[in-house]
Structure formats: structure tokens, C-alpha cells
């Protein structure tokens, strides 16, 4: 058993480089297709429903976490949920200060496993666990079929 604290001597050369490529393009799978196309076209959320154990999931899954069955059934719901927890971010991805701060919440939906992480537009003194919120979507012609088609959630 031994350890080594690494101290870099001055005569050692630093070599700059990266591990980047041209970028990534992700496909979203069958459930993702349903979710984002419905969000874009109808402004609704989609849960997938396991016909074996009855579990419903958002984000929708093509397989059930509980019984591992394939899921082929989907249900649409209004984008209205409950704030399960929240945080207020005063820094961006590079730790630079942001003003005004961004509120981020985890929002759950009635009788559905999972939920969504998203931004919350709210007066911070109203912010608490358990409040009811609704998604504010971008105008239909600006939606692209991704999670940012929701601009934020807001209190109702």
C-alpha cells in the first residue's frame, strides 16, 4: 500500500490537446420520438406505461425498470406537476456568476414514476417543495423537438 502526491517539476513540458471530435448526434429511441414529437406538436407530455406491472414513466422508457418488460403503450398528460426539490444556481457551467440566478427544479407528475428536471420561473420567496407548476412552452413554430421546447415551468 502506498501513495504518491504528484508534484510537477518545472522542467517538465506541458502539452496541450483535446479529446474532441466533430461532435455527437444522438437519436432518441422509440419512446423519445413519441415524447418529443408530442411535445412539439401538441404541447403535451408523454409517459410510457408497462402493461405488465402498470408503472408509468416520464421520461418515457421502452423497457420497464421494475419488471424489464418491453413497453409499447403511451399515455399523454398535461404538463402540470409538483416541485419535488429545487436549487438556485448563481453560476453557469464554467462557474462564472450569473445574474439573475436560475432556479432549477425536479418536477414530478401525478401517479407517474420519474419526472423532469427543468428551469423554474418563480419569485424565490414563493419557492418551496410541493408547489404546483405548469410548463411554459415555446411558440409552436419555434419548437424543435427537444427538452428546450419547454422554456420553463411556472407556478399556478
Amino acid at each position, binding site marked *: 500500500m502506498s501513495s504518491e502526491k504528484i508534484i510537477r517539476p518545472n522542467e517538465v513540458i506541458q*502539452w496541450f*490537446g483535446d*479529446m474532441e*471530435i*466533430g*461532435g*455527437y*448526434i*444522438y*437519436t*432518441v*429511441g*422509440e419512446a*423519445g*420520438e413519441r415524447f418529443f414529437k408530442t411535445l412539439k406538436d401538441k404541447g403535451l407530455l408523454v409517459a410510457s406505461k408497462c402493461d405488465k406491472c402498470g408503472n408509468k414513466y416520464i421520461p418515457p422508457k*421502452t*423497457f420497464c*425498470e421494475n*419488471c*424489464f418488460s*418491453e413497453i409499447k403503450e403511451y399515455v399523454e398528460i398535461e404538463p402540470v406537476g409538483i416541485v419535488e426539490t429545487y436549487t438556485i444556481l448563481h453560476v453557469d457551467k464554467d462557474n462564472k456568476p450569473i445574474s439573475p440566478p436560475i432556479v432549477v427544479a425536479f418536477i414530478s407528475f401525478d401517479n407517474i414514476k420519474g419526472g423532469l428536471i427543468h428551469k423554474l420561473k418563480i419569485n424565490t420567496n414563493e419557492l418551496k417543495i410541493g408547489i404546483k407548476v405548469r410548463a411554459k412552452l415555446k411558440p409552436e413554430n419555434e419548437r424543435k423537438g427537444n427538452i428546450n421546447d419547454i422554456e420553463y415551468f411556472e407556478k399556478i
Partner: protein
Amino acid sequence: MKTNLNIKNRVAIVGAGLTLFRRRMLDTPKELAWGAVKMALESAGLDIKDVEAVVIGSAPDAFDGVHMKGEYLSDGSGGIGKPTMRVYVGGGTGVFTPIAGWWHVASGLFDVVIAVAEEKMSPAQPHPQYVFKHIWDPIIERPLGLNLIWIFAMEMHRYMYRYNIKKEDVALVSVKNKANALDHPAAQAAGKITVDDVLKSEILVWPVQRLDISPVSDGAAAIVMVSEKIARRLTDSPVWVEGVGWALDSTHWTNRDLSYPKYLEVAARMAYKMANIENPRKEIDVAEVYDPFDYKELHHMEGLMLARKGEAPILTKEGITQRDGDLPINPSGGLLGVGNPIAAAGLMKVAEIFWQLRYEAGKRQVKKPVYTGLAQAWGDLMQVGTVIIMRGG
């Protein structure tokens, strides 16, 4: 190699599953993993709740485009709420995953373990080949713009030079494997081609031409590994894992003799010793050896001591490695025919040996009776050999 032969617990494979192998798939990586695991569990007659631990194999994170890919894949792999770990030896990972599965069960800690391998190469843009820019030493090699095909071409050419092998003899491997893959339900690159087709295909980096190479692919594979007592309960035809071996050569590939994969010989000797095999050429009935390039099948046959040095092209020419030959090699169609979703391709080979030893390979079933089979993969900087030896019940 000091190998302790006091193995306490026997380990059996009782189920296997695959997804389709395709250039690009709609399904997310975790959905692909799920597809393979689900099929493996069903074929074993087991439920996800029976699974006690999960081993995940996947090659570079830079393909799927997710850091900590093992975490990301764990739900689709059946690993929620379970001891789950990802193992990694570059391209050799596909055969290393069941080796890790073996030690999970052979340790006595678990009775039912899933080994799953997944690769989704298609997210990487503009081409998955770009990922290979980053496997080189960043200081002494990357500035020279090293290209993956270059390094394999260098090894291939050294091998051809050393044993005076003709290009058309190497091409026979591609012809055989792509034809074998016509009978494989996952196959992406099956076809009836001729030696002439290979020799006339686009020259990429002499001596490598387009039809010497396996494609890039998305796909997943899984097997179920169990202890002896569970195996006896589940099936009359378990396939036993009788030998495992792996070894790494030095990082410094330019300090090695590229004409012979000595690291693979070391790995094979470890596995043969454990499986009590003295004469592999006689005792191995069927083998799936790693064939991302056609010459690698030959190179690996020699490293595995299934052929003497320089002899693999001769055995191939004589038809001995065909499905109806005396030493069938890659009856699945291999990476050249079925496709190459890196780690998944290696585990596909293990699955093929499982089906061969159970006489369940349908049209791919080799003609001779089979009792002992071998699967092998290779990776890192042309430096790791992973070997598993299996026997029918």
C-alpha cells in the same frame, strides 16, 4: 504465468442474446443493452429479479458520446440496485466481459450474473473513425496525424513480409466470413464476394483495402452466467467456462515485433492451462477469433497456437477453417460479416460458441461434432488478448 488451478466454483453460460448489428440504430445505447439482456434472460428461462450482479463491457466512451458510460448503461443492462461494474480493455472488452462475469460467479459471491456488452458508434461525428485520433500517445504520436488504419496496415504488412504471405491469401478470410454471415440474423455486412472483389476494392492504406475491414456498427450482446447448482436446475445443456486468459503487452508498440501477437500467446497459455488443454490444434473444435481485419484472423490463429507461425493462410486456403472444415473459424461470420460494434462484437463471438456447443446455431452449425470451443478478442494499441474456453455439457 503462475496460474493457480484450485478453482473452487464452476461457472456455466445458460443464455445468450443479441440485438441487430447496424450502421446506425434509432435505439439509445441503454435500449440496445436492454434488447440483448432481455433475450439472454428469456433464453435462460430467468427473470430480471433472479439476477444478482451485472458486468458491463463497452469500449471508448467517445463513441456513444457519454462520459462514465458504464453508469449510463446500467439500467438497460439490468443493473438497477445491484452490484454493477464496467470492465475495459479496449477492443478486447467483448471477451473480457464474460471473463469478469466468470470471476463474479467463481468467487462464490453470486449465483446469477449478466455479462452485457454494448457499443453505439454512430453518434460520433463526422465519422466514428475520428474517435481513434485519441487512442495514441498525445505527445509523441498524435502530432503526426496517426490514423487507425495506418497502424493495422503496419502490423498487417509486417506479418505478410515476415511469412511471405500474398494479399489474395489474406482476402480469403473476408470472403469466408462475409459468406458465413449470410446465415446470421444480426448481420450487417454479409455477402457473397470473391477474392477478386477484395483485391479490386478501394485501397485505403496499402496493404489494407476496403473489403479487408469490418464496418462500424451499433449493437449489443449479452449472456447469462450462473453457478453450477443453478445451471443444473435450469438446463440439461449448460455450457461451461473452462478457461479464461488475458494479457497486455507494453504500451510501446513501436518497440515490439508486430509479426506475432505474443501477448495473445501468453493469454492463450493461461486459458489452456486452466482448461487443461495441451494441444489446442487438436482439442479446440471450433473457434471465434477476432477479425476486425481479415489478416487478424490469421494472426490470431497463430497467437492462439491453432496454427504454427505463418501457417494460418495455408489452413485457410485448404478450407480447414470453413464451417465444414476440420477447424472451423468464425462460423458466425465474425466482425467482417456480422458487424463490429466493438465490445458487443466480442461478446457476440462468445454467444456464437455457446450456440455452437449446444447445437443451436441452425444453418451456422459446424459440420464436425463440437465439445470444446474458444472465443477471443483483441484491443488497446494492438496489445491485449482476451481468451475464453467453453465446453458443452
